[in-house]
């Protein structure tokens, strides 16, 4: 797929269920290479936005364009997605890989061996995929996605609840893919991970894009109140239909606030 086809544009994209907007009038134009992180509170619409971008959910209104065109089968075949909970077939590791390779008409054992080696799963080739550990399952899901040779790779909190070793393997591969020209779009709650991997950040709040900026700018000078609250570890709760109320740590006790990463530990991007 030519690089310009990796250029994603969302025009007034909305998605609603029963009249309730879950994603509301999103306008975005992402760079055609590198890695973009989507961040935001739980329920902000991040996963839904990712599915809208990938085309597995159709918008209620607006258009999703790849290289200026509405998504075609060719675009979709050049994309792959790794879900938060790995969806593995009830088969062996090998059969899971072969399923995708066969479907993409690449019955290539060398590619399978190479990808499984990359995710450190080659010794477990014959094992039932569902008997792998959580980290191994997610690594297999990533290897299977890479078997599609994607021009665009979507990751929906692919490292959530994984141990540091599995997280490191996945981050290393994702960084390499981005370096090699694959457009990576990933969701994370881990600010440190976003800072390590992403060149730009989309920050979602209540179904809208609250902020889209360069990663350095986002982490040092977030402009939206929601992003500021998110990065400083403040809880943000919905307040009727008119907006959100901010709850400061002092209101409920520090120990009830989850800090995904203190600002001073964030590496330079």
């Amino acid at each position: 797929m030519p690089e310009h086809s990796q250029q994603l544009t969302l025009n007034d994209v909305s998605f609603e269920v029963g009249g309730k907007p879950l994603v509301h009038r999103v306008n975005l134009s992402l760079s055609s290479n590198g890695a973009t992180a989507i961040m935001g509170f739980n329920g902000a619409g991040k996963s839904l936005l990712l599915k809208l971008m990938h085309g597995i959910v159709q918008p209620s209104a607006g258009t999703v364009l790849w290289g200026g065109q509405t998504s075609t089968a060719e675009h979709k075949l050049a994309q792959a997605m790794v879900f938060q909970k790995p969806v593995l077939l009830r088969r062996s590791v090998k059969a899971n890989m072969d399923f995708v390779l066969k479907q993409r008409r690449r019955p290539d054992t060398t590619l399978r061996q190479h990808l499984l080696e990359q995710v450190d799963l080659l010794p477990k080739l014959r094992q039932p995929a569902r008997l792998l550990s959580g980290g191994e399952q997610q690594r297999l899901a990533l290897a299977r996605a890479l078997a599609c040779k994607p021009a665009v790779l979507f990751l929906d909190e692919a490292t959530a609840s994984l141990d540091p070793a599995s997280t490191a393997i996945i981050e290393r591969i994702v960084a390499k893919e981005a370096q090699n020209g694959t457009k990576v779009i990933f969701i994370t709650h881990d600010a440190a991970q976003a800072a390590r991997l992403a060149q730009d950040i989309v920050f979602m709040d209540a179904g809208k894009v609250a902020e889209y900026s360069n990663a350095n700018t986002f982490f040092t000078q977030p402009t939206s109140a929601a992003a500021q609250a998110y990065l400083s570890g403040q809880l943000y709760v919905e307040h009727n239909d008119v907006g959100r109320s901010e709850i400061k740590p002092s209101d409920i006790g520090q120990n009830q606030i989850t800090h995904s990463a203190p600002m001073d530990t964030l590496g330079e991007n």
Partner: protein
Amino acid sequence: MQESAIGLAFGLILRGDANLLEIMGLSLRVSLSAVCLSLVLGLSAGAALATTEFRGRALATIAVNALMSMPPVVVGLLVYLALSRSGPLGWLGLLYTPTAMIIAQTILITPLIAALSRQVIEDLYIEYKDQFLSLQLSTAQQIKALLWDARYSLLTVALAGLGRSLSEVGAVIIVGGNIEHLTRVMTTAIALETSKGDLGLALALGILLLGLALLVNAILSGLNLTAKRQAYA
């Protein structure tokens, strides 16, 4: 009398009585044929209901579930009316033949297989759906993958169908007529021999039927165990 009947029954089984084997053979032929046909029809219907959205899908699902509890004698009666000389399919001359029995049992088992397989396939489809959409699989590719991945559960469904078929008497006696050496199967023979007072043959057939039920359940348990061990269930 009962003691001598039990002795007679085991005697018939141990010496491989030709009549007994013939009745058992026909039972298996009719039931296995009906299950095979029902699998083709029921799995197709179950997979279609599980994976496609269409107007009236909920109604179709309710109908299939309701047909599961269709009384065999009613099915027998309907098939009889269709196949009798004055019926719309009378010209085929199938009444009182094993084919008529296979048709009746297929009609009886298909809703069972469709309803149970729909549930199995739908549960798996909910899990796989986003991944399938992401991989751009066609409907045929999706159904093929679902049927393969649900194979252990679907084998259980097939064996449940076989169990129902082997133990069924109402439909086959109406459309088969329980004719000796032609349409007499285990259940209809048991009913007849008991009414005649020939308890030896009836008991021998009962023991074999129970043996078959045990065998089917043992296979089922073995399959479930294998599937769970491999995390394929």
